[in-house]
């Protein structure tokens, strides 16, 4: 059993069209950021503006979907992934604006990750975009808080991951100075990447943002589970993997601000944390069984 909401053909058409346009414009922004990375500075502003346009179209898609499903579009793998992508772009666009467009290079690393997320929710055959009604167990205001905190937490970790990738690339380049000197391409790339110290700070701040919301997500989930299932912690794989992700980032943040860890060790922790986050989102859904079967 499990029916579908009867969506009007016009509603469906608007929804699908907006989604396709948003994806295409996101792709265009990604291309812009990558070109900017290779020395074409004028593409940075173009990419940033394109991203903002894509984000607005994406927002319109979410609003249309909300109207079509007659509830918050937070349920199921597609809707969660969609909100996660939207939040990632929102947080990145906000940081770009806050930093006065100084670090367009981050976009060249974050946006391909975002495109991977989009590919996953659109191309993975097991993910349904069906308009399902909300089962009673999910008819709770905690859904809004829990999922909002979750997608914002994931967004922060995605940004930290992008900065970690940049740090790794910068590190490799700096350790292969001869090869970089001989290649104008690599030289431009190295120059475009911010200093490791800046990248570490960016990674740290993004992780802090993610960690705070991951904490709120776990807490709101526990309160909701207590109301709904009669216990605040059930050792469910989704709960456990959220906690594992939290542990990894907790270790990173502790190590950084109390022991002054920097460099390879902290970057490695952020990369591991991102993998744990991805497994919480994707791996648990398809490889492990638990009670979080709705998303």
């Amino acid at each position, binding site marked *: 059993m499990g029916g579908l909401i009867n969506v009007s053909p016009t509603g469906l058409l608007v929804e699908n069209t907006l989604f396709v346009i948003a994806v295409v414009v996101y792709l265009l922004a990604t291309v812009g950021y990558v070109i900017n990375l290779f020395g074409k500075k004028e593409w940075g502003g173009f990419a940033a503006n394109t991203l903002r346009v894509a984000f607005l179209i994406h927002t319109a898609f979410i609003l249309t979907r909300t109207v079509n499903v007659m509830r918050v579009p937070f349920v199921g793998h597609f809707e969660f992934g969609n909100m996660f992508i939207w939040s990632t772009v929102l947080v990145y666009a906000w940081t770009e604006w806050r930093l006065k467009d100084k670090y367009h290079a981050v976009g060249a690393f974050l946006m391909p990750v975002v495109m991977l997320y989009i590919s996953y929710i659109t191309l993975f055959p097991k993910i349904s975009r069906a308009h399902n009604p909300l089962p*009673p167990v999910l008819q709770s205001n905690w859904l809004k808080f829990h999922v909002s905190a979750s997608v914002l937490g994931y967004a922060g970790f995605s940004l930290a991951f992008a900065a970690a990738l940049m740090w790794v690339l910068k590190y490799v380049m700096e350790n292969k100075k001869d090869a970089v000197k001989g290649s104008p391409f690599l030289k431009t790339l190295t120059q475009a990447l911010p200093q490791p110290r800046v990248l570490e700070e960016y990674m740290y701040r993004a992780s802090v943002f993610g960690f705070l919301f991951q904490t709120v997500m776990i807490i709101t989930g526990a309160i909701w589970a207590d109301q709904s*299932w009669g*216990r605040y912690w059930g050792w469910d794989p989704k709960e*456990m*993997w959220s906690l594992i992700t939290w542990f*990894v980032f*907790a270790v990173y943040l*502790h*190590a950084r601000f109390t*022991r002054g860890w920097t460099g390879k060790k902290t970057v490695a922790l952020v990369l591991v944390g991102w993998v744990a986050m991805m497994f919480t989102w994707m791996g648990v859904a398809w490889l492990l069984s638990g009670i979080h079967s709705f998303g």
Partner: protein
Amino acid sequence: MAQETPGLPEQQSTQASPIKQILNFLSSMQLGIILLLLLAVISVFATTQEMNTAISSIYTSWWFVGIMAFTALNLLLCTIERIGPLTRQAFQPKREMTADGIKKMQINRVIKVKSPGDEPLASVQQIFKSNGLQTTVQETSEGITLFGERGKFGYFGSIVTHLSLLLILLGAMYGALTGYETRNGGMSGDNFFVTQGNWRADIGEVRMVFEKDPTVRPRVYSDVTITRNGKVIKEGTVSINDPLRFEGTSIYHSTFLWISQVNITDPATGTVEELKFFEGDRYFLQDKGVQFESLAFFPDFTMAAGGRPTSKSYNPNRPVLAYRITINGQQEPWDLLELNEPATLETPNGPVEITLTGFENAAVYSIAKNLGRPILFIGAVLMVIGLYMSFFLFPRRFWATFDAKTSSLVVGGRGYRNRLGVEQIMERIESEIRNREGE
């Protein structure tokens, strides 16, 4: 867990007593990190196991609980160890500073000024204030030092976070030791007794409210009255996401079941037995030598592809009971019983007539007493506050003095955990001083 650089290990080993060394180890952040990583690795392995196996053989095992207890001990010792130094750090800052002392700070600026003396310092004082710094002026024999600070409560972020984790662990432990969990339920008119809590629950009306889309699992509301020694202690309605709470105990709606009302009539004698069956219930008809088994109830019956009975929705548009009879130990093929349409079964001792006369719902409850819940809640709120204090209330301190030897303003800054933030503020301060100096 968190600990500021304690000095070289060699120094510690030669200076501290063995007990102090053990305490240092138990409160060290290295141990905290190792324990957190260990918990993470074990949890990764545990999630690859079947959930109930993981709960019984890992999460509730003595060694896993032991690691958590060890983590709690590490947190507690670390918190105790840090409270004193952090309090001193937060409330007893060194307000006087010489120009040379400020120059030694990692973040400092030396800015030539036109007018010597107090005037530039007065200007810096305004700039400090405009940057949100609480400013004091210290006069010493060596001159005037301006001191500005902000965010001193940020020093306590890690302490509050640690305390919150301890509270959460304490709440979980207290809840587990003083509480209980069980499951029970029934249909309208039923009652059950919960020995652990010494109370009885009487189930009143159990009603199903359908969603707009009948294929979505409906909500079931059940009225429950709780009594102890005949005295009512709580009355209310239980539904999904809306438990009934009393005395630290909660009754949660867990699920609902269909109950089929079946009449079994012996045509020879005219006797009628009115029975109620949950799915899976069996009833042995002694005089007929047959067993009746209720297999499944379908409120909106249809036959799916492959001859599999199913329900199109939760709406009782076509209620059907699938059943099976066993004669002399021999199972007959399953059959279907439609509402108010009697079926006659041929048994070795004569025919028997069975009729599905109705159906109703039973509510299934999860019952849990958890006195640790308020502690857990306070712990959760404190954790968010602690993390906010840790990451967003970063303490920053600035000093400024006039260096007569070089006719320069010397400004220095220090931060706790956020060097870049201090650098950004220093950039602002420098730029404002230069603006005022007309540069």
